[in-house]
């Protein structure tokens, strides 16, 4: 029950963060979206052993966190499930790739370890960039920006409705589990015999509510061709310089081995 409650709070927290007035929030959504896409492309393009080069890409999310007035540690903690998933995937490399590729002096890391670390870092950097985009822009504005990039309307609508449906699903799950817990005192979790009916109820009730929300949208003129978006409450300037700086930053750290050059100086 607590976990569901926290999940709902996390989604609402994203909406709250998007409504703040920070330097990053004030930037145009399209510029932020393009910048994050560029950053993702460059970050994910690093080869699997390019650990030192990849580390340079970490400056960008750190800077974004500062601009968004968010704690880097808190933001990182929100991606722990992503990190766990990536670690699970990368663990296989330890067994198949044992050739030494990185000599740290006292320790020599095998290819498996380096590729595991690279995968983890790539994943966490990507998570941070996307999280910061949503947390400083809001899903509605991101979807509007996606439309401006000519992403198919059906795809954008699906993203938007999925986001809304997740909240409904969590709310219904929370209600059901609360109702169960109140009538099953002292029981830890939900008994497996009740899983089937509760899941069925959850599906039916969340579908029912999703249908109501959709009807409400239809009644207020929504159709797949609609272009509704959250109204701009902040002045939106500085998009082009921000996107340009991002592109230059990504090009520099992707094409020039900055850390190696600095290391060679000493």
């Amino acid at each position, binding site marked *: 029950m607590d976990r569901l409650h926290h999940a709902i709070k996390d989604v609402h927290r994203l909406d*709250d963060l998007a409504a703040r007035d920070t330097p990053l929030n004030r930037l145009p959504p399209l510029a932020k979206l393009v910048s994050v896409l560029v950053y993702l492309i460059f970050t994910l393009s690093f080869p699997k052993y390019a650990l030192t080069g990849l580390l340079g890409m970490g400056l960008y999310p750190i800077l974004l966190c500062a601009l968004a007035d968010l704690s880097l540690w808190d933001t990182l903690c929100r991606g722990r499930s992503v990190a766990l998933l990536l670690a699970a995937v990368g663990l296989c490399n330890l067994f198949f790739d044992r050739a030494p590729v990185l000599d740290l002096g006292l320790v020599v890391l095998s290819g498996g370890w380096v590729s595991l670390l690279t995968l983890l870092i790539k994943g966490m950097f990507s998570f941070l960039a996307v999280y910061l985009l949503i947390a400083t822009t809001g899903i509605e504005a991101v979807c509007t920006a996606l439309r401006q990039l000519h992403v198919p309307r059906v795809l954008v609508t699906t993203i938007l409705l999925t986001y809304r449906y997740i909240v409904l699903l969590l709310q219904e799950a929370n209600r059901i589990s609360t109702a169960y817990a109140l009538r099953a005192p002292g029981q830890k979790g939900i008994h497996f015999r009740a899983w089937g009916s509760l899941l069925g109820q959850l599906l039916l009730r969340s579908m029912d509510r999703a249908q*109501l929300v959709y009807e409400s949208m239809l009644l207020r003129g929504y159709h797949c061709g609609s*272009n509704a978006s959250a109204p701009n409450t902040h002045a939106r300037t500085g998009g082009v310089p921000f996107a340009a700086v991002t592109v230059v930053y990504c090009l520099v750290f992707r094409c020039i081995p900055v850390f190696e050059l600095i290391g060679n100086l000493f």
Partner: protein
Amino acid sequence: MDPILDVQGLSFRYEGGHEGAVLDGLSFTLERGERVGLVGCNGVGKSTLLKLLVGILPMQQGTLTVGGLAMNRKNLPELRRKVGYVFQDSDSQLFMPTVQADVAFAAENYGYPPQEVADRTRRALARVQLESCADRPVYRLSGGQKKLASIAGILTLDPELILMDEPSAALDPRNRRGLIRILNDLPCAKLIASHDLDFIYDTCDRVLLLHHGRLAADGSARELLRNAALLEQCELELPLRFQQAP
């Protein structure tokens, strides 16, 4: 002048329903600006009727005209511009992140220019006295504020007819009184479905009494809501204000 709503011989049956027609040959009209209550016991078809009037449920039998427009697929967008529907559950009606974004939703979808959307949103929020909550996230609103935000969401289109499903449900006395005052100040026609007969008495001049999918009575709220025998026959009770204390 044409009535804002003209319903003739309306019947409806849910697919796979074993209990026959929910609505059976219903006929009535609503004049512009008229305030009408739709009352009846549970399952009598009040919500079904409201959903038919905005095209959420498909027409099966009978005719339906709203503001001179026949109910059909082609007229549906224009018809929905004329008719605002306030859901019983405000949580299902409010889906945008902030109150302002939700209230602006309809005006944006109908293609008004941004300045016009902003003006309509501001006016709608002012009419329900919710200006101070414009930037607040929807989930932070109280039940009463959510109801008002739902109403503001349909007022942006200046509807000629407002349909409301149990508007007073889950409201405390103060919010209920506030809602009555706001509804009575709205000049458009209203069709309000409710079990709360005191609320109907305070907001409506005329009452349609449904029973077994048919119109059991159609008349003045002052008279019908004092008719204990008729209400009893339709499985309802007198409004609390007319009931004698035990």
